[in-house]
């Protein structure tokens, strides 16, 4: 439940150890490598001249990636789940190394590229054939060879294409010119196709009319054949091309089994690239190199062991960070908190020295998430689905935590379901007595109870948040601030609530004075401690009072925001109830009734679970981020990212 302490170290080693050491560091994931400050150690070490290795690796990665994405086009049995979770390969280190050594990926990539090029060429040809056929189609009924329409000593002939509605005008204009013959060959929905024969002496005039009316001349391909025959000829060619393409597709499908291995090789290169990138932070002299970075204080011993055992000629020293240097953040939490850690990670990591809020978020998240679902059946389904996902879907450690989170949420939903009588939305009145007895309130009937309960959770969490901030201020020995800005609120707010309740409720009238006393003592604490806050006590006092009203307004808004717990819980219950009502109605349909009812129940409840869970997750998270965190947590720390193997496709099994 805390931010891990970091130690900055510097490692100096022999050049010949460099490659091995970097590999070792990558495997052990111990050090977050940092750049040297400009000019540091300049007397002994220089920058490393960049070599071609990095460029070479990036090129290989690009080749492999394009081959993989080509192969993915032929993966027809891709399961639906891969749309949500990209495919990963779980692999042991031994098998990984074996594939890296033995698999001839270059051969596969060449093979893939050949196929791809062939397909491209075929596609080009098909496109051009399509074009030719579409030119010929309007002339397919022509009973003479198009090449006969050629230039003679005195005449010229053209095939023309133009807008249908322009034809009459064109015909009129041509009829004014002697010895001009215009013949309609065919027409389709928009265009008309014509044969034009005319005397050469009219050439200029004819052309200008054609241009004016937007008619263009067409050159028919294969004009020494009848157009219908030419079309047949092209279609046969097309068929054989398509056949050839299908064969290439089949070949592509056959090499699909190599995709996994290519992915593994891809990651091997990726790891290499990460090592090369790490090397850019190093500096070198003639015989030695130096690197610096952060190591978790609790792992420094492990680091020393590795160096001592494998690289005896390497020297490690602890160094003092620069004044303006902030260590990267790693947090340590017990396993039960870790799923909630991934929620806070979405907001951001704490600053160095700030409290890690995951442990504080955990109980609230657990309770709220379940309250938004509040159904035993849905909870069980959620647990089952998470369990199935954890077994069947290969994901990284980070994503796995979310499955745990939903599983925990499922348990919470079961608990809330029991006390609210939520069993797949079945009418509470129809539940067996022992389940009925467990019901504390029915959300559909006791709306106000649910509402007040939600707001109570809000008050509790926000007061808790203020308490955490007080703890932080006390830890930093800002006693006056802790008393004036936090402790006073924690006292005054419950006092006000008590006072209002006693005013509203005749049976609580005797608590009226107690409430007033609590408020008064809180105000006193605030006023007195404000005097010690700064140099100008009067100013601090005025600021303090104004801030109180401002914060009270915030508090009210934030607490009301928790009413979403009720709305979401209710929404889920109502929809579940509706699904059941419809299913019961469907039972009245003759013969098919049971089938339709079952369909309603299965699809309806699954859809409701999905919507409900998404809503529960997002809004519970929002309550943490927007309502809870501002009271004590800022976040924004830089994550501790040790040199490691960051894979795209594989997950190592160990």
């Amino acid at each position, binding site marked *: 439940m805390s931010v891990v302490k970091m130690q900055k170290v510097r490692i100096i080693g022999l050049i010949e150890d460099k490659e091995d050491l970097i590999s070792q560091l990558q495997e052990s994931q111990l050090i977050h490598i940092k750049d040297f400050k400009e000019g540091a150690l300049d007397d002994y070490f220089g920058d490393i001249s960049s070599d071609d290795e990095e460029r070479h690796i990036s090129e290989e990665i690009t080749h492999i990636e394009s081959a993989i994405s080509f192969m993915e086009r032929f993966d027809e049995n891709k399961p639906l789940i891969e*749309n*949500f*979770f*990209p495919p990963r390969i779980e692999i042991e280190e031994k098998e990984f190394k074996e594939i890296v050594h033995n698999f001839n990926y270059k051969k596969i990539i060449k093979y893939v590229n050949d196929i791809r090029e062939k397909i491209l060429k075929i596609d080009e040809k098909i496109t051009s054939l399509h074009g030719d056929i579409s030119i010929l189609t309007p002339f397919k009924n022509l009973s003479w060879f198009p090449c006969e329409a050629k230039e003679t000593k005195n005449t010229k002939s053209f095939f023309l294409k133009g807008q249908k509605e322009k034809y009459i005008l064109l015909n009129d204009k041509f009829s004014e010119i002697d010895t001009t013959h215009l013949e309609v060959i065919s027409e389709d929905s928009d265009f008309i196709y014509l044969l034009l024969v005319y005397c050469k002496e009219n050439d200029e005039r004819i052309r200008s009319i054609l241009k004016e009316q937007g008619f263009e001349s067409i050159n028919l391909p294969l004009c020494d054949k009848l157009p219908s025959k030419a079309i047949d000829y092209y279609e046969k060619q097309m068929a054989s091309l398509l056949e050839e393409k299908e064969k290439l597709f089949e070949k592509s499908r056959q090499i699909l089994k190599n995709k996994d291995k290519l992915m593994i090789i891809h990651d091997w290169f990726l790891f290499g690239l990460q090592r090369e990138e790490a090397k850019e932070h190093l500096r070198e002299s003639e015989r030695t190199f130096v690197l610096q970075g952060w190591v978790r204080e609790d792992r420094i011993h492990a680091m020393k062991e590795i160096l001592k055992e494998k690289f005896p000629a390497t020297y490690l020293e602890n160094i003092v960070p620069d004044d303006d240097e902030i260590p990267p953040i790693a947090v340590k939490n017990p396993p039960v908190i870790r799923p909630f850690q991934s929620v806070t990670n*979405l907001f951001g990591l704490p600053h160095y020295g700030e409290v890690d809020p995951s442990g504080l978020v955990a109980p609230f998240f657990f309770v709220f998430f379940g309250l938004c679902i509040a159904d035993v059946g849905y909870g069980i389904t959620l647990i089952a689905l998470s369990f199935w996902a954890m077994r069947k879907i290969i994901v990284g450690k980070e994503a796995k935590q979310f499955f745990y989170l939903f599983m925990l949420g499922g348990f919470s939903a079961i608990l809330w379901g029991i006390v609210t009588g939520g069993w797949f939305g079945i009418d509470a009145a129809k539940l067996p007595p022992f389940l009925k007895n467990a019901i504390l309130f029915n959300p559909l009937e006791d*709306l*106000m109870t649910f*509402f007040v309960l939600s707001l109570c959770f809000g008050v509790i969490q926000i007061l808790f948040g203020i308490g955490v901030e007080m703890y932080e201020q006390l830890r930093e020995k800002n006693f006056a601030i802790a008393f004036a800005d936090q402790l006073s609120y924690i006292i005054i707010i419950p006092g006000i609530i008590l006072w209002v309740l006693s005013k509203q409720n005749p049976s609580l009238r005797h608590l009226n004075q107690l409430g007033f006393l609590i408020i008064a003592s809180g105000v006193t604490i605030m006023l007195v401690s404000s005097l010690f806050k700064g140099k100008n006590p009067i100013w601090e006092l005025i600021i303090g009072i104004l801030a109180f009203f401002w914060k009270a307004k915030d508090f009210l808004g934030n607490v*009301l*925001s928790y*009413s*979403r717990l*009720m*709305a*979401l819980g*209710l*929404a889920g219950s*109502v*929809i579940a109830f*509706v699904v059941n*009502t419809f299913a019961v109605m469907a039972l009245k349909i003759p013969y098919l009734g049971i089938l339709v009812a079952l369909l309603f129940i299965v699809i309806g409840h699954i859809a409701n679970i999905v*919507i409900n869970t*998404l*809503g529960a997750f*997002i*809004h519970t*998270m*929002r309550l943490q*981020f*927007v309502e809870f965190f501002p009271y004590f947590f800022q976040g924004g720390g830089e994550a501790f990212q040790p040199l490691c193997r960051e894979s795209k496709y594989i997950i190592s099994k160990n």
Partner: protein
Amino acid sequence: MDISLGLAVAGGALAAALAGIGSAIGIGIAAEAADGLLSEEPGKFGNALILVALPGTQGFYGFILCFLIIMKTGLLGGQIPVITISQGLQILGVCLPVGLVQLYSAIHQGKASAAGIGVIAKQPKALMQAVTLSALIETYAIIGLLTGILFLNGIKI
């Protein structure tokens, strides 16, 4: 059916209709953006789906209020329910703000989700942040629904 029940029915229908329209428009806006992304990166379908689905909840909220009115007036029962004109008007009044809030919040949530699609196109890891920002808008849809539920709870039939 007399006019008072007609008013109540009109209210419920309006709430469901406005909310449904809003969700349809909102999802439409987000889905268009998502299609643009998918044409380049079909692998992001799952992530995009979450963002596109967000403005869909408003439709449900409207429906929930409509359903609660149906329950309240006993429309699903065998007998024709009897309510007064003033009760009918009250129910109609409750429904209007609910429907309007759903309508507008769904549309704007759709816009925010579409922008979120732009975020995950460049930063796949920022999915949940984009979802959270878009979900901020939903707060008001929830408050709208809550207003309706609390009012409806207060109307005595």
